[in-house]
Each structure stands twice: as C-alpha cells, then as structure tokens.
C-alpha cells in the first residue's frame, strides 16, 4: 500500500495536467487570431512536440531512475520503429512492441 503523500501525486498531476491543457485550449478560442500569427511562434509550436516526444522515447525506453540501460524495452521500441517505417497502423505497432518486449523479458 502506498502512503497518502505518494497517492496524492496521481490526483495532483491528473487534475493539474487537465487544467493546464484545458486552459491552453480555451485561451486559444478567446484571443484574436493575429496574436499568435508570428511565424516564430508557429515554428516553435511545431518543434516543441518533436523535442518533447523524442526525449520521452529516450527516457522511457533507455533509462531506469538515473541510469542508462538497454533491456527488453529496446526490442519493443525497435519493433515499433520498424512498424512505423513499414507504415503499419498505430495499434499494431504499439501492441506489437509490447508483445516483442514481453517475449524478450520472458526468455532473457
């Protein structure tokens, strides 16, 4: 059983992320279009998800706490990359990655 302090991080982050995401969506519907028309804002807006999502792949697949490790997850992610190169649908790639990772985990 987890203590109340560690339980609360789940609700805090769930509600905090929801509030922040809704705020951006709502503000966007309220401000004049010209405010964010600057090409620099548009360029950065397109690049931020690329940076964050790539960092998330790295952290989720290759770290454990503050160590870099290569384990069964890499097999799964490699399968996903191959699947996306082969233009397979998202659920096939993602659940296929899980199956490959599970197999390597089991027979390792």
């Amino acid at each position: 059983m987890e203590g109340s302090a560690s339980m609360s991080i789940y609700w805090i982050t769930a509600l905090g992320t929801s509030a922040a995401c809704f705020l951006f969506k709502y503000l966007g519907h309220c401000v004049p279009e010209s405010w964010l028309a600057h090409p620099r804002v548009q360029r950065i807006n397109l690049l931020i998800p690329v940076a964050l999502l790539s960092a998330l792949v790295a952290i989720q697949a290759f770290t454990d706490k503050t160590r870099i490790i290569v384990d069964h997850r890499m097999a799964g992610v490699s399968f996903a990359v191959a699947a996306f190169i082969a233009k397979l649908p998202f659920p096939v790639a993602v659940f296929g990655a899980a199956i490959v990772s599970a197999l390597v985990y089991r027979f390792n």
Partner: protein
Amino acid sequence: MSVKRDSLSLSFAVGVYGAAFGAASVAAHFSVLQTCAISLLTFSGASQFALVGVVGAGGGAFSAIATGALLGTRNGLYAVRLAPLLNVRGAKRIIAAHMTIDESTGIALAQANEKDARTGFWWTGFGVFIFWNLFTLLGALSAGLLKDPAAFGLDALVPAAFVGLVWPRLTNKKSIYLAALAFIFALALALFVPAGVPIIATSLLAILMGWKGPRA
C-alpha cells in the same frame, strides 16, 4: 455526408489508442478511476502519455504537469485557427475548447467549405471523445488484471506510443535533427537530474531551433 463518415472512421481508429493509454496509465500506478479522469478531463493523447510516463519514471508533480502542459500548447494554437470558423460563445465555447485536439482540427481544416469544416470538427471531436474514453476504460481494466506489467510488455508500450506520436512530425531535416538532438540531450541529462526535468529541458532546444527562419 462523407465528412461524417471520415470523422467517424478517424474517431474509431484514434479512439483505439485509448486502450494503450489506459494500460500504460495503470502500469504507471494510476488507478482505473484516475486513468479515466485523465482521459475525460485532459483529452489530449500526447499530454496524457507524457503525464503517466513522467510519473511512472519517478518524476515529480511539477515535471509531469509541465511536460503535459507543454505538449498541450499546440491545442491552443489550433484553437486560435478554429475560433473564427466555429464562432461560438459561452457553454458551447467551453465544449469546443475541450474538443480542440489534433484530429478534430485536422479534419476541420481539410474541408473545402466552412459548413463541412464545422461538421467535421464536431463529429470528430465528439467521436474521438467517446471512443477514446471507452477504450481507455477497457485498457485500464485489462491492465489492472496483470500482476507484472513488464511481463506483458506494458513498459515498452509507452515509448512505442511516443515513437508513433513523433513519427508523423518528422517531416523535414530540421525536425529529424531536433529529434536526434533531443533524444541524446535527454539521455545525457538523465544521468544528473531527476526524471522529468530532462524532458522539459529539451523544449529549449525546440525554441533555439525554431527562433531562426527556414534559412538556418
């Protein structure tokens, strides 16, 4: 007519990813109720995966919320483009804001006239909302039955989902270069700072790279 058909088929295809989110969230020790609350209230796939990814990796609340929020900023820019098209006020604007996601915006902006654009926005928004939440619940309940998430590959599910989310964004040299740089930068930082911080820090790389125009 074909707008509605396109909207619904896209909604179903996207909604199915909800199962991956539900499973990943439960594997990161969120409860089924919390998992469903995230899908109902955040309703933005990348932000949701980021949130459970950072918390699952042991990151702090601030890192988790900041990463989820940064991935949600693009919805705000979608909203700016949609607002004159939808032209809604009050409660309807609140609902429109909540439905402002990649898919509803994509369908709306792909239409030839404003009437189809509005139809596409609402049908896709509500369609994804229904399927995404339904599949989140199914994924969360299924994952909840498993004792050892790694034995079922759930720890590979999240990074694989991130590969799938970043893949369609790698459309030019700059974005590919940034992706590689962010990947290496995050791993290097992960050796020194707690989980979550390395991820947010890579947004600085995006700002630096986006600052200069296409000639750079």
